[in-house]
């Protein structure tokens, strides 16, 4: 052997191995990834993969049989209820582990452990918002309830039982790509996941932005820009419904006019906000309006569209109940679905339950804060944030007691969310910090048999408040605008409030018996689409300013007019593309366009708008023209007023401009304050249309003027990897249509349940049951969903185990 060549070859080989085994030079350990027996090839699942399994777990109390059908939906038959939750945990982990972990890491402010330093601002903000704090409080509450604790223990044990079976080669793909391993699951993680849903649904606020808007604009202008009454409102509980008498009358603080309704500019900005569009549609029609004579319940939650999907279809069958629907990987039970007696669904309540209070500390040590004229002792929570490849970051957060609640001082001199230096202290009072037992409501609904069971169940839902729709086979329909809502005086919570005495704190919660609801109403249907729960003119408690108007308006109009309704009619309604806002705006646009001032291209596009049927359908160029024009129109109207405004501010909510013009065609803000003359509606509309022509021409030149091409709806992989995502889906819809499909947000589940003697159920979500991008079940539902079609949902019975739809059987024994 020749020594020198040997040493040289050995050195080169060793060098290559080190480089390919780590992320020293390359972004991923390519050696590990490409190795056929260890790497990503192991995740390539053959189309004919056999899921049959015979598994033994001593944690089980009895036998559990799982039948996976041809859509990979598991039908779980358990002798003991908690065993079903064990198996649910096992299956959630088997098919969606990485998603479960990623969501709880993000929720718990641990993104930096995986992403490195770029996750630090997110992590600090989420911890300072009190996400982990809230999850710990919820966990303590859960432990007081033996039934729910046993359910969660079983679920956690099932998830961990699966994690224990993983080897390097069977790790899900994303762990290999990023280079880490899964952790054990715990009840705290289930709590954290549910708090993430609270973040998504019940944490939206614009307090800093509105404070700045109010500091800049006059009181009169502010009320016009951000009205609290909407003329086109068709509330969830119809106008004219007699509501219970108000028992708690919130008192306006004496200093409100001097220190609250007019404040100085603030420099804090939340780093991340939940999507403003997180909402949904739901409705139930009674037998009086259906062809079968039985109620039909429908629900389509609107959330960010991702792969893997937030939802996982499942059937759970135990001696106590038999339920089918969608579940959350991360929590036990069926969340939206039906059982042998009834069906249930949710839309977001959307009320403001997150308010900020300015705190005065004695000095920069933050050891003492001022409250009711005394110095009180601060509590501290020290968070250690691990950062990949760097030193830990230590974040010390002050907690102050506001009323009965210890609240984190989220923004202080060391953290302002944005990139500004901030010298003030703001504590956040978020309803999600309060002890509550959310899993109980789902457990009770899964078991529910009638309206009484539903009524008992819903009052357990405190945060996130939801409009809970319900229907039974025996013919009842109901909807409750449920939540533990703070009872607010008019304007409370819009702006930052002084936090040095009790006068601005929430004075109490709306008593549960005053929560507006409907039960078998005369109009024969109940519905909600995130609009205000009740008539904003007469409802005694303050509801805030930002609620979507148009979907609810369209749904109620259509349902009022329909009779002899079938399940197919409901699927057609759920996928309807009519844009009610455009329907209201188009007449005044057409009436006020100065066609002479448009060039040839402008006239061509204006003709498209004239001929448009106000539907966001596939192939519609008019829809794109309208939307491009509308963006420019809003800018044309408001840009001059906002030209010198603070950077951290809010533009008027969608709908404000339409409502403003419908009310008064000499709408105040049509005037351009930078010019001496007074502009009219026609001036604004024509100018805006002219400005939008260039964009229309550019889109038409590349063949993207059609609505679905312009919108480019996509379902993105959670790590935003395009090759693992579905892009440019051929689907219509829009923010103001019942089919609320936008670019990255839309109906994440569509469900229609007809509660005839033999239940007829349909559902679809844009994803697939498997979270493995290498599986044929990763995205096999996406095309069906995009086409507006549904799958029949199969509530399997014991007798059907030989059905040809059964793909594989998994047996679980103790």
């Amino acid at each position, binding site marked *: 052997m020749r020594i020198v*060549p040997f040493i040289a070859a050995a050195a080169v*080989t060793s060098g290559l*191995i080190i480089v*390919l*085994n780590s992320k020293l030079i390359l972004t991923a350990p390519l*050696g*590990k990834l*490409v*190795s*056929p*027996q*260890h*790497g990503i*090839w192991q995740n*390539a699942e053959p189309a004919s993969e056999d899921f049959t399994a015979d598994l033994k777990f001593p944690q089980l109390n009895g036998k559990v049989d799982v039948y996976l059908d041809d859509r990979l939906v598991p039908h779980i038959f358990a002798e003991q209820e908690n065993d079903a939750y064990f198996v649910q945990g096992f299956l959630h982990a088997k098919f969606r582990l990485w998603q479960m972990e990623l969501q709880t890491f993000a929720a718990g402010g641990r993104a930096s452990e995986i992403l490195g330093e770029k996750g630090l601002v997110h992590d600090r903000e989420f911890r300072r918002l009190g996400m982990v704090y809230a999850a710990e409080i919820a966990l303590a509450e859960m432990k007081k309830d033996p039934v729910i604790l046993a359910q969660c223990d079983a679920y956690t044990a099932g998830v961990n039982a699966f994690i224990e079976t993983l080897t390097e080669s069977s790790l899900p793909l994303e762990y290999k790509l990023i280079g880490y391993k899964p952790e054990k699951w715990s009840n705290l993680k289930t709590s954290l996941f549910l708090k993430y849903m609270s973040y998504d649904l019940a944490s939206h606020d614009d307090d800093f932005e509105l404070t700045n808007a109010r500091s800049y604009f006059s009181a009169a202008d502010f009320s016009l820009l951000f009205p609290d009454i909407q003329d086109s409102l068709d509330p969830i509980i119809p106008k004219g419904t007699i509501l219970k008498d108000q028992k708690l009358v919130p008192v306006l603080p004496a200093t409100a006019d001097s220190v609250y309704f007019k404040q100085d500019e603030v420099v804090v900005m939340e780093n991340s906000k939940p999507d403003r569009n997180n909402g949904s549609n739901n409705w139930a029609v009674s037998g009086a309006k259906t062809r079968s004579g039985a109620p039909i319940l429908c629900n389509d939650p609107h959330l960010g569209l991702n792969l893997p999907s937030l939802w996982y279809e499942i059937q759970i069958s135990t001696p106590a109940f038999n339920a089918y629907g969608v579940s959350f990987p991360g929590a036990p039970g069926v969340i939206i679905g039906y059982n042998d007696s009834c069906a249930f669904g949710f839309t977001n309540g959307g009320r403001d339950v997150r308010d900020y209070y300015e705190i005065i500390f004695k000095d920069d040590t933050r050891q003492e804060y001022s409250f009711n004229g005394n110095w009180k002792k601060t509590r501290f929570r020290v968070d250690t944030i691990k950062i990949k490849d760097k030193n830990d970051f230590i974040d010390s957060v002050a907690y102050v007691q506001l009323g009965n609640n210890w609240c984190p001082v989220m923004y202080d001199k060391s953290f302002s969310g944005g990139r500004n230096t901030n010298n003030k202290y703001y504590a956040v009072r978020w309803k999600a910090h309060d002890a509550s037992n959310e899993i109980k409501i789902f457990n009770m609904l899964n078991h529910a048999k009638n309206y009484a069971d539903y009524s008992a169940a819903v009052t357990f839902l405190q945060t996130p408040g939801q409009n809970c729709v319900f229907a039974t086979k025996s013919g009842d329909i109901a909807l409750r605008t449920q939540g533990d809502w703070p009872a607010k005086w008019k304007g409370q919570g819009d702006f930052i409030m002084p936090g040095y005495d009790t006068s601005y704190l929430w004075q109490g919660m709306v008593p549960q018996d005053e929560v507006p609801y409907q039960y078998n109403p005369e109009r024969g249907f109940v519905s909600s689409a995130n609009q205000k729960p009740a008539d904003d003119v007469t409802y005694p408690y303050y509801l805030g300013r930002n609620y979507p108007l148009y979907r609810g308006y369209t749904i109620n109009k259509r349902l009022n007019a329909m009779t002899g309704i079938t399940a197919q009619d409901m699927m057609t309604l759920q996928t309807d593309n009519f844009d009610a806002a455009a329907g209201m705006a188009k007449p005044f646009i057409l009436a006020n366009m100065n066609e002479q001032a448009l060039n040839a291209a402008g006239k061509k596009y204006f003709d498209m708008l004239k001929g448009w049927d106000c539907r966001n359908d596939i192939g519609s160029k008019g829809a794109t023209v309208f939307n491009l024009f509308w963006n420019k129109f809003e800018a044309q109207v408001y840009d001059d007023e906002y030209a010198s405004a603070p950077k951290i501010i809010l533009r008027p909510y969608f709908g404000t401009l339409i409502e403003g013009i419908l009310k008064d065609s000499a709408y105040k803000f049509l005037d351009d304050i930078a010019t001496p003359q007074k502009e009219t509606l026609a001036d604004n509309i024509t100018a805006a249309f002219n400005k939008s022509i260039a964009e229309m021409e550019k889109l038409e030149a590349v063949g993207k003027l059609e609505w679905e091409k312009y919108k480019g709806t996509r379902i993105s992989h959670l790590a935003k990897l395009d090759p693992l995502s579905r892009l440019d889906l051929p689907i219509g819809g829009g923010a103001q249509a019942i089919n609320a499909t936008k670019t990255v947000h839309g109906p994440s589940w569509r469900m229609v349940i007809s509660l005839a003697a033999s239940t007829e159920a349909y559902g679809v979500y844009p994803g697939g049951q498997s979270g493995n991008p290498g599986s044929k079940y990763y995205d096999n539902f996406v095309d069906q969903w995009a086409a507006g079609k549904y799958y029949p949902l199969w509530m399997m019975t014991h007798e059907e185990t030989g059905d040809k739809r059964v793909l594989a059987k998994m047996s679980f024994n103790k």
Partner: protein
Amino acid sequence: MKFFISFILTILLSFAFCLFLPWWSIAVASFIVAVLIPQKPLSSFLTAFGALFLLWGRPEFLDQQ
């Protein structure tokens, strides 16, 4: 002949090692075969290169749909 035998042996030994050991055991496997079946330097290199190319490249070729 030597080339052919050492080629097959490299593939089999690398495959066997990878069932239990990390991926870079393919380097060890190739080294063992090269020691047991001495060839000229270029042949020896091509044996290992070709064998591992086939072993690792096989999935890519099969997935040509």
